[in-house]
């Protein structure tokens, strides 16, 4: 059987089940023993063999390598996926996290066997405190959303300790927020209240004032926000919220835009999560693993998750779990440890001045793209942005009927990963570019020239754009039918 059509070295690859031949295998296994199934109810016993594909080792390896070649990653080319911070991850991060001293340990070993790992955690907490201005940090949360959950749990605990848990349940969230924010709010037993961003794309104190009462638990602000704009009124808003007895949570997903320039604690933020996998360059985008450490003020520190790493007077390190007010664990063991090693490496490699420079270059690159493209694609809000810039297809769609999605698909034909599309929701047809500090001026200009060429093509040959991509392994998918008539499991073709 051969359904494979190869175009040069671009392999057409069917599902692995369709490559199966009966009896083929990659291993020589001993004959199986009769199954001791005593005690298992008959209804749960399998009647036949599971429907697994049968292939040799080389077939399996080729299958997955071929599929991987359809992929685009940061190591293939520019990946300007707004809000996701797809910066290049230096290889030294991987080399350090592969050191045997880290990889050959087990989290249940005694503290004295783990001194190097514990010292790294202690020092990384210290570095994160320095860049954020917070009193303490926990490294445990495994990603941004887990960090959000943790930070809000600290706030919830503080409110409960004050005896106001039943009453203070409102958490204010601007309409530019990440979708995970309201979910984290609800998981902690709070109620999300959406507030509207001002016309300049920033949150104004007036939007917060009507909610300043004894039901207010917290405000949750992403800074810079998802339009890439610095929340310039945050300090004043934080004072208002504190005055009403509430707390300020900052979503630190975009911390890479202010790192080394602004310390959230100085803005009145009580707690914030970092996305180590974004800001501090560890691989992500394939579903993890990430790391979402949470920093907080001295007031909230007693509630941080356990175990905490402590430095003894003798200079050794140990883990403490017996803390009376802790919210408990939010992740098994100590979080995604190898990611912590990568982020620590990145911070030491850059140093303080280097991290500030990273921020400057990320902001400069985004503004360079905005300046070069703003006469080609309309910008959502015509103000200076930080690390990312949001365009809209408003004018393009009116003139040519070509949409953001079409331009995004056509970019694939020129070797670029598309930007984030249709997010944030408050911008119609959003086209959200985050170039990161990694890209050179030449590469940024290549990207800009490509977008300009596609927009011109939308006028001269719109069909070419609306039917893109043309040069990829798989053409444009029928996303509507795929979503309406879902096929969630492969089934054999009827003979």
């Amino acid at each position, binding site marked *: 059987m051969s359904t494979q059509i190869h175009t040069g070295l671009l392999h057409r690859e069917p599902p692995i089940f369709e490559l199966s031949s009966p009896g083929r295998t990659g291993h020589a296994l001993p004959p199986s023993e009769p199954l001791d199934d005593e005690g298992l109810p008959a209804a749960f016993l399998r009647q036949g063999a599971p429907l697994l594909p049968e292939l040799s080792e080389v077939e399996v390896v080729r299958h997955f390598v071929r599929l991987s070649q359809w992929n685009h990653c940061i190591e293939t080319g520019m990946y300007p996926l707004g809000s996701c911070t797809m910066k290049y991850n230096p290889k030294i991060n991987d080399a350090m996290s592969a050191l045997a001293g880290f990889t050959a340990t087990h989290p249940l070993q005694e503290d004295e066997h783990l001194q190097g790992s514990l010292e790294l955690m202690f020092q990384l907490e210290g570095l994160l405190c320095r860049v954020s201005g917070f009193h303490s940090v926990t490294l445990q949360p495994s990603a941004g959303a887990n960090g959000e959950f943790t930070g809000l749990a600290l706030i919830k605990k503080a409110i409960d300790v004050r005896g106001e848990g039943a009453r203070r349940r409102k958490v204010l969230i601007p309409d530019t927020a990440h979708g995970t924010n309201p979910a984290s709010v609800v998981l902690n037993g709070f109620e999300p209240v959406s507030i509207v961003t001002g016309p300049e794309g920033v949150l104004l104190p007036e939007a917060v004032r009507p909610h300043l009462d004894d039901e207010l638990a917290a405000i949750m602000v992403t800074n810079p926000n998802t339009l890439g704009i610095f929340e310039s009124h945050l300090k004043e808003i934080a004072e208002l919220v504190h005055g009403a007895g509430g707390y300020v949570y900052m979503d630190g997903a975009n911390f890479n835009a202010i790192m080394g320039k602004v310390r959230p604690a100085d803005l009145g933020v009580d707690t914030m999560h970092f996305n180590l996998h974004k800001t501090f360059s560890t691989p992500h985008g394939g579903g993890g693993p990430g790391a979402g450490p949470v920093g907080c003020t001295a007031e909230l520190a007693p509630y941080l998750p356990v175990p905490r790493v402590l430095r003894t007077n003798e200079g050794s390190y140990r883990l403490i779990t017996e803390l009376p007010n802790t919210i408990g664990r939010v992740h098994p063991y100590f979080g995604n440890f190898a990611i912590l090693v990568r982020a620590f490496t990145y911070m030491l490699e850059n140093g303080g001045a280097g991290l500030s420079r990273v921020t400057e270059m990320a902001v400069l690159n985004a503004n360079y793209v905005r300046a070069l493209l703003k006469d080609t694609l309309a910008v959502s809000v015509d103000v200076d942005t930080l690390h990312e810039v949001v365009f809209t297809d408003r004018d393009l769609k009116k003139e040519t009927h070509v949409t953001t999605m079409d331009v995004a698909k056509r970019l694939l034909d020129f070797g670029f990963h598309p930007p984030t599309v249709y997010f944030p929701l408050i911008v119609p047809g959003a086209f959200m570019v985050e170039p990161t500090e990694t890209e050179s001026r030449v590469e940024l200009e290549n990207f800009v020239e490509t977008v300009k060429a596609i927009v011109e093509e939308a006028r001269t040959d719109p069909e070419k754009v609306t039917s893109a991509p043309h040069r990829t392994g798989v053409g444009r998918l029928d996303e*509507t039918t795929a979503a309406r008539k879902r096929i969630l499991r492969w089934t054999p073709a009827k003979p």
Partner: protein
Amino acid sequence: MSEYPNNLRYSRTHEWFDPETNRMGISSFAVGHLGDVVEVDLSVDEGDMVDAGDEVGTIESVKTASPIYAPISGKIVAFNEDLADAPELVNDAPYTDGWILEIEPTGSDDMSDLFDATLYSDHCASEE
């Protein structure tokens, strides 16, 4: 571009309500912004009482998911069972076969809280 039948009343959040049939759905303006609808997920059951503005479910398209709000206070008396297998009805016929819920008004609402077709058309133009 979009058209808004004169016999219907419209909410600020782009639902329509038909005072004759008590049915509600979402307007062609909303459909135009959502794109291809792939799922209508209701969070209310027949017999439930809702207030105008209450969230009654979510509508998901290939681009986004948006809440659906009750345009009027009343009792849920029916929902469009056809949407489970054919969510595209919302795209193809938003005012007829693509109806979503039937709500028997409690009468406490003043219908004047809703727009007529002309005012709604202006409202849409201001959001475009």
